[in-house]
């Protein structure tokens, strides 16, 4: 960020920084809770990838929709999932937005346009295409976005979803979070093509950005979304990033060694903080932001721990929607 940036831009960056930090601290807290045995199941953290969720969502309207994947905490929080509701769900409480039935891999808030994390690699793609179909049909001018990883590029649904969206002229943005890993394997050993070449082959509007710089992600997302919205067409945004932690918490990561300086250089929070400081923010200001978020998280976690245990009979009565709910 150069010195002559407008204060609006600085304001935008500050807002995005806060949002990224909130996601980071929320996931770090979650990791601690998980290590303590307080979080059931398994969890995939998006630490190091926050700039993508925050940058892309910054370019969306509140009524645009997002479909996500197994690494969906950041997408959900960025799209407006309440922090208390998040922890309540992750801890399996009845007050969680999914009433403790979904957990980490299924966080969702449909009222905020967050159509759910997803346990099936690739599945969000066609859900987003369908959401875009509804947007087009209902004429509200919304777009749909799907976040997926580089490993998901191998699923056939990618191909079907892109073609279907193109043929039907649907406003959907495909966001690939390319962190180089597909679980415990390097994606380079699974994917034989450059997504750029393939997207070009489909005739899609494609952009690639340094995914750890939230300003770049936001700017690119704004461009792609504007195009997608204006012309009711699919487009692609590929974001290069790093998966800082294991595939899931508890992953011993014997299959790779991480380079600490690489992480430092690319940490989306450091990148953003440096820019904010260059624009005149002090270390103290940033520390204060962090303190406030920590307080928010403390409260949310406390809240969540007090959540109630979901009742089995309640859940059983809710397997189906009832006519009134239509």
């Amino acid at each position, binding site marked *: 960020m150069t010195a002559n940036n407008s204060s609006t831009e600085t304001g935008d960056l500050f807002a995005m920084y806060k949002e990224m930090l909130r996601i980071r601290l929320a996931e770090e807290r979650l990791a601690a809770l998980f290590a303590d045995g307080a979080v059931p199941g398994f969890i995939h953290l998006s630490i190091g990838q926050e700039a993508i969720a925050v940058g892309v969502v910054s370019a969306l309207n509140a009524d645009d*929709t997002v*479909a996500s994947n197994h690494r969906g905490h950041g997408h959900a929080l960025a799209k407006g999932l309440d922090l208390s509701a998040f922890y309540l769900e992750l801890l399996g409480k009845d007050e*969680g*937005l*999914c*009433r*403790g*039935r*979904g957990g980490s891999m*299924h966080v*969702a*808030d*449909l*009222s905020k346009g967050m*159509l*759910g994390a*997803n*346990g*099936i690699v690739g*599945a969000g*793609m*066609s*859900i*987003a*295409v*369908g*959401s*875009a*179909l*509804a*947007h*087009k*049909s*209902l004429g509200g001018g919304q777009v*749909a976005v799907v976040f997926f990883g580089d490993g998901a590029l191998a699923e*056939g*649904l990618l191909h*079907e*979803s892109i*073609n*279907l969206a193109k*043929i*039907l002229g649907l406003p959907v943005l495909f966001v690939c979070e390319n962190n180089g890993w597909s679980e415990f394997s390097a994606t380079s050993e699974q994917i034989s093509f450059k997504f750029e070449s393939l997207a070009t082959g489909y005739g899609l509007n494609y952009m690639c950005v340094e995914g750890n710089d939230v300003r770049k992600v936001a700017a690119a997302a704004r461009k792609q979304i504007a195009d997608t919205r204006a012309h009711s067409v699919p487009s692609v945004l590929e974001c290069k990033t790093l998966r800082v932690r294991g595939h899931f918490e508890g992953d011993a990561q014997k299959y790779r060694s991480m380079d600490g300086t690489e992480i430092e250089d690319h940490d989306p929070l450091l990148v953003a903080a440096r820019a904010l400081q260059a624009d005149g923010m002090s270390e103290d200001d940033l520390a204060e932001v962090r303190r406030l978020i920590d307080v928010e998280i403390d409260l949310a976690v406390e809240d969540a721990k007090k959540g109630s245990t979901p009742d089995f009979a309640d*859940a059983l009565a*809710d*397997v*189906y*929607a*009832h*006519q009134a*709910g*239509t």
Partner: protein
Amino acid sequence: MEVINYGRSLNNALADAMTDDSRVVVMGEDIGAAGGPFGVTRGLLEKFGSDRVIDTPISEAAIVGAATGAAMSGLKPVVEIMFMDFSTLAMDAIVNQAAKAHFMFGGQRPVPMVVRTPHGGGLNAGPQHSQCLEAWFAHIPGLKVVCPSSAANAYGLLRAAIDDPNPVIFVEHKGLYAKKAEVENSRSSQIIGKAAVVRVGTDATIVSYGASVNTALEAADLLAEKGIEVEIVDLQSIQPWDRDAVLDSVKKTNRLVIAHEAVEAFGVGAEIAATVADIGFDYLDAPIVRVGAAFMPVPFAASLESGYSPNASDIERAVRRTLD
């Protein structure tokens, strides 16, 4: 009173549902200009336009996945999967996404969608174009499974499926499309989960659904000639299925035969038999006999397919076995 065929009955249901609710869209392969491979969507494109009658590429997984996303975002999609055998390509969307979204997201929103698909043989269409796979879907919490047996209930069941806030697998039978029936009130919706007693009798109960109900009726005629009066329960809906109707009938007849075209082993009949062998055990005076297809891929040659598919005399024999 109207005489109308099964395909037309379905077509009317689609047209009326689309007229009544602008959120209803239909989508599938060759369903627009071509009117669908079995003609069920004929005329809809002309009437409702290509925004609501959506011809898709040959992409079953994406079609049903998109329907799910659309249902979560305000539409009521009715998808056609051209042959039930091709539902194998869309199982993730049906089973892991559509079926679970309402429950797994804590009841935030319903997922109102219908997957229409024809099953069944009799056309020598071979192993990949004839299967009856409804038992799979009935095993999945969150799905409803409906299967009309004639033009008389096709309309009402499809209207009910489209109105339902849950994903409904709507199973049609290829052999029925051209079949006509007299229809009392051709415009009324039915209730999913209610069976119909289509023949009253006292000696044994035959439970069936879909095209096999006709086979059961044929068997009943054969049996009646010999003085045996069977009661026939047409399930109409397989998930949920009408336990009360089945138990009431078995309570009266004390004998139960279940007949369907699907493979007998691990088929729909197993669930009905198992349920009655538990909560209806005291009503039973004889073994429960199932009549279903042989354990074999649906074969092509006529001689094989006719051996494969249960017919009226198979059902007749099964009833006799319960009366021995």
